[in-house]
């Protein structure tokens, strides 16, 4: 925005603006740094308030214990499974339906679209949904967390908008004239041109699968199937003790033992937060280029 050479008031404005922007950034950044640093610190320093910014008494014991905890690792594995298979199903259902609905010559597309949009504003609600899932025999199955959110209507709309405006129709028509079927056109011509859309959808669907816990809470009772977030809820919020937090060593006095236990438990809480966020954080730089695109795709509909 370098329109003019800075006058004095311009410079003052810039400085003040910079201070405020940096302040907001620090407020958002600090809790994340704090958790990360604490997870690598000696729990003695954390519990006495000596860790402020950087790890103190560098220590990875918490991580070793987290990685050895069967419950956390099972949760991790389950969530991986739900996220990958769930996102694939999401992509398939959403992309196919959105492409069909983006075709101007599709008979009945308006009524279908209306019926899908309607569910965004009016739904059966938690209890009837639960009863339907129960009556279908889906409770406590591996399927339930995958199929219950197969299509997100908002994502369907942005996909349809993308296909309607973002892909040159001449290409599709040329392919059809050349004897390509409509589905062939979609798979061979349109999909390869839709990488941005697929990126956005993978981001949105993947993160929502990775972060979801409520479905697991109400639909699953079998411990071996619960997603990671549900295990995290027990550790972080219900403050349950997990095997990873049990201190070893019989020789200690009871009190000492208890104090150690409390410290370990708190250390492990920091570590599980980091461990559970790793996949999203690793994907973050790759997905970042899709953020703006995704939000802008969403706003095209207006």
């Amino acid at each position, binding site marked *: 925005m370098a329109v003019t050479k800075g006058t004095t008031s311009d410079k003052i*404005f810039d400085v003040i603006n910079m201070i405020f922007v940096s302040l907001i950034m620090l407020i958002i950044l600090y809790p994340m740094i704090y958790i990360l640093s604490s997870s690598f610190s000696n729990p003695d320093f954390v519990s006495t308030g000596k860790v402020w910014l950087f790890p103190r008494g560098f220590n990875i014991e918490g991580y070793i214990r987290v990685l050895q905890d069967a419950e956390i690792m099972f949760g991790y594995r389950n969530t991986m499974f739900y996220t990958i298979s769930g996102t694939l199903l999401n992509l398939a259902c959403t992309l196919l339906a959105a492409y069909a609905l983006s075709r101007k010559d599709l008979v009945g597309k308006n009524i279908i679209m209306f*019926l899908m949009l309607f569910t965004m504003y009016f739904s059966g609600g938690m209890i*009837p949904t639960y009863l339907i899932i129960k009556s279908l025999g889906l409770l406590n199955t591996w399927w339930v967390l995958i199929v219950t959110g197969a299509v997100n209507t908002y994502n369907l709309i942005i996909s349809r908008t993308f296909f309607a405006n973002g892909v040159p129709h001449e290409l599709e028509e040329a392919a059809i004239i050349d004897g390509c079927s409509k589905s062939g056109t979609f798979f061979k011509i349109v999909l390869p041109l839709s990488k941005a859309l697929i990126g956005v959808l993978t981001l949105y669907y993947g993160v929502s699968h990775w*972060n979801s816990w409520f479905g697991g809470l109400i639909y699953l009772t079998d411990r071996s199937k619960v997603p990671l977030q549900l295990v995290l809820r027990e550790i972080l*919020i219900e403050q349950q003790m997990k095997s990873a937090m049990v201190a070893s060593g019989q020789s200690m006095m009871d009190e000492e033992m208890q104090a150690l236990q409390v410290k370990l438990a708190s250390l492990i809480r920091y570590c599980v937060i980091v461990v559970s966020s790793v996949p999203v954080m690793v994907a973050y730089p790759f997905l970042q280029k899709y953020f703006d695109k995704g939000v802008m795709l969403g706003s095209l509909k207006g």
Partner: protein
Amino acid sequence: MNLAKTGISPDVAKKTLWKRIAVNYEMYFFLLPAIVYYIIFHYGPLYGLQIAFKDFNGALGIWGSKWVGLKHFNNFFSSYYFWLLIKNTLVLSIYSLIAGFPMPIILALMLNEVKSNKYKKFVQTVTYAPHFISTVVLVGTIVIIFSPTYGLVNQMLKLLGMEVQSFMTNPKLFRHIYVWSGVWQSTGWGSIIYIASLSSVDHEQYEAATIDGASRIQRIRYINIPVLIPIMTILLIMNAGSIMNVGFEKVLLMQNDLIMDVADVISTYVYRRGLIRAEFSFSSAIGLFNNVANFILLMIVNGITRKLGETSLF
């Protein structure tokens, strides 16, 4: 492709309705999975909503249970909880809206004035990140940071010579913690759309304004803010329409026995009565009431903005 539309008699057009469908038969196969999904998981529950007017009995099923009219609605409206839940829900979401709505706009306006593109990108990267944190981890982090024994906030209070507090069980603090942690999480992500529209502003406008002697503040006031108004309107409609829907998952995670007077909202009440105590019909009725109220609100707000001649949602 467009031959059918041009210069063909209506007679032929009518005859070709089936042909027009048949031509796209593959597209209907494309739609099939989504349609099946919507029928089962969206229209199924809408069909099941009738139990709000019945006494649901598992053995008789949704269809076979006995009709009881508005019994469950009357029970809810006359119960002690009704006004409490409405109040808690509205206070929480209106407070969230007032605190949370302007923040992304302010951040976007400020970022737009940052001259270094590198720094701007960096701030964006940092501020978007909390959006991807799960609700469980967010609430877990709040619990850790505010913990009375080892929490960061209490360590700070101790340093300042103040008394250690139990934040999560204090009914006076619940709303503030809920709202401001929400602001922390969503300000950055919410600013994307505003930053994008600000980047579409024509540079000549700034130059013209500067020549006319406009200060930076005036440029923001008379050029940038007007650019953002249409998006602000749409987002405000959407937010106002969902004012009876608070972030259910986060409230549920933050609840504990000591703060239920302020932390119990309609949706968590539905969950508790419906799924914990298995009062399916009663809680479905509350859910339906909430849904209808939401829908009406959305229509009203949308109608008002349309009347005012501004952008509307539909």
